């Protein structure tokens, strides 16, 4: 039975904890709130002094002009298309590769695993030029292939690692029982193991989705035609070459472009955290 002073201490301790967390959350959220606020402010109000968070004369002009100004409808369509294919590819291929690493052993397995981990440590800048030259040889510059193919060929070392950690936590007896029942390796994978790794699948799905939706550099390098550009590139059209920025329109379009990702993240957050936690990667 806790004493009165212990109870009081607990309340104080919790209050301080929540206060600190609340302040930290506010600090993290402030840029987001500012983005929302700026999206609905007229130009004259954006830079008014002292700055205000709640628009005095809210307007939709930034959203309307921003949408029309840089062909955002098309950018949305392109981004959604790339994101869909790349995300599906990432989830499928990384789970298959991870299944191989976790369930099949050969003399080369340890070496291949080290190579896999090694790719996580390789900065993307190092592989950029060889990859670009490769896709150029394959006549794939200014197509969506370079943005999608890598997702279907492994889907990234980190995602594979997540799946491996999860597969390894599943008892091999599950596989053996299925094999006794006549299942082949592929059936073991998609009938027995895959249904058990839904949390990781969702975690990888959300991460791949956010990455592909926000990816700026790869579309910039590989796409040339304006009608193939993505949202991340489109947002740059609000920043002029001489330093002038259409900040209202830029924030409005950034907000609109964030909405789909936010909705998905909010919906899948539970599974996302669960997937990370169960893979043993959460601190």
């Amino acid at each position, binding site marked *: 039975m806790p004493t009165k002073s212990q109870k009081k201490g607990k309340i104080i301790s919790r209050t301080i904890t929540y206060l600190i967390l609340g302040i930290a959350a506010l600090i993290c959220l402030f840029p987001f709130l500012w983005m929302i606020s700026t999206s609905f402010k007229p130009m004259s109000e954006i830079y008014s002094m002292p700055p205000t968070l709640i628009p005095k004369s809210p307007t939709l002009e930034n959203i309307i002009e921003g949408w029309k100004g840089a062909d955002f409808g098309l950018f949305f369509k392109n981004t959604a298309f790339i994101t869909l294919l790349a995300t599906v590819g990432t989830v499928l291929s990384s789970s298959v590769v991870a299944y191989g690493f976790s369930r099949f052993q050969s003399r080369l397995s340890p070496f291949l695993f080290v190579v896999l981990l090694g790719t996580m440590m390789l900065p993307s800048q190092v592989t*950029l*030029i060889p990859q670009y*030259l490769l896709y150029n040889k394959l006549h794939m*510059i200014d197509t969506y292939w370079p943005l999608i193919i890598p997702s279907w060929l492994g889907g990234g070392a980190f995602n594979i690692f997540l799946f491996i950690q999860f597969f390894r936590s599943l008892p091999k007896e599950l596989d053996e029982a299925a094999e006794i029942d006549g299942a082949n390796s592929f059936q073991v994978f998609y009938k027995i193991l895959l249904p058990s790794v839904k949390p990781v699948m969702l975690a990888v799905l959300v991460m791949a989705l956010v990455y592909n939706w926000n990816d700026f550099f790869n579309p910039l390098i590989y796409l*040339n*035609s304006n009608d193939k550009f993505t949202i991340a590139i489109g947002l*740059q059209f609000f920043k*002029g070459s*001489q330093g002038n*920025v259409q900040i209202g329109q830029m924030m409005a379009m950034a907000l609109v472009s964030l909405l789909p990702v936010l909705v998905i993240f909010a919906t899948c957050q539970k599974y996302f955290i669960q997937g990370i936690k169960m893979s043993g990667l959460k601190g």
Partner: protein
Amino acid sequence: MKLKKVLAVGLAGVMTIGMMACGGGQSASSSGATSQKDSGEKQKLVIWSWGADEEKKSREDAVAAFEKAHPEIEVEHSVIPTADHVWDQKMTAALTAGTGPDVIQMSPDYYGLYTEYYEDLNPYVEKEGVDLESVITEGMLDPYYRPDGKLEGMPLLQNVFVMAYNKDLFDEKGIDYPTADWTWDDVAAAAKQFAGGEGADATYGIVNHWIDPPMSIICKGGSAYSDDLTTCEIDSQEVRDGLDLFGDLVQSKAMPDDTAAKSLPKEQLFVSGHAAMYTLGGFETKLISEEIGENFKWDAVSMPKVPNGGKNNLMYATGYSMLKTSQNKDAAWTFLKETTYANEDMAKETCRAGMTACKNIAETYYKDLSYGPITNAAYMESLSDAKLNIWGGAYSAPGDVWTQIWQSVTIDGKTADEAINEYYPALEKAFNEANGK
């Protein structure tokens, strides 16, 4: 079981869409230069421009005017953002891999950085039999010639600066308006009288601008390097004086310090009536004028004079080059000459973003355009006094060192002597390396 079937069908659908759509447009919009089709078919011309907002629209409308004039050429025009080195990354990858377009936007202030990829345009000019000096706005062509005589591009437009001032603030303080005879010392003396207030109520004499660091080099008659680009001349008393002038402006709060300058886009201090003077570029006149509206009375004069009568303005120029890899060089040249001097409709569209290279349009149509109290004639008058952007392209490394010197003075409060003594060896080394020494 049903779920698996749906999943399988869904996946098959996704892959099919992918197969169909990923390569879509490859033949119609391939990367890089494309070969000319057999006679009877349209020639294809791939053009890359940079720009955003009004600049982007100006480029697109100019190209549309070109397409209208040349239905025999099929143009594929891409406008790529340029802020945050976006353009640089894209262009470098494409040029290196040989996947660039037929025609690419460039700037003479690259100082030869990408010239190996550009076609020498002299033979095209000779074949055309045109006297470029007679059709191109005065002073715009020279920067496109490399020291070896190669003509690496054709000018599109350029922009210089004027000194805009808030008449109401000058009237309030009882200070005479700036004149064309003012020097930077006059500007500094006047600017200090406007310094006052704190935080949101602070007022300043002059607003920071991204041209300030290079402007500090020339404002007292100094220069960064010799005209033949071989000798670094930063370590001079004139440059030290110019740097100290700007350091003094910041220290005396006549110009916002780094924190204040970062709290708000710089031009907004002028637009909102918190600063008396602003170095106004030709590219931003329309925007600034619209933002000021009727809020206060304002005007502009030419940039302050420098002591030895030297160049007192900075120019930011851009044009187009033909890539050596282009396989449609005739069409590319047609575009280059029209965008520079031979298509007045294109030139008029270009005027929305700056002073066109087309002499006839610059001296008539562009000159008469006005935004608020500012007429473009003010920029025309400043053209002959302008120096090409100092630290572009090949000189970006010494430019980075100059930025350190600039920050040492304007942020850390060092004197020009201290900063230059500390960093000059590194700057000179970077300059010599840029020149291949």
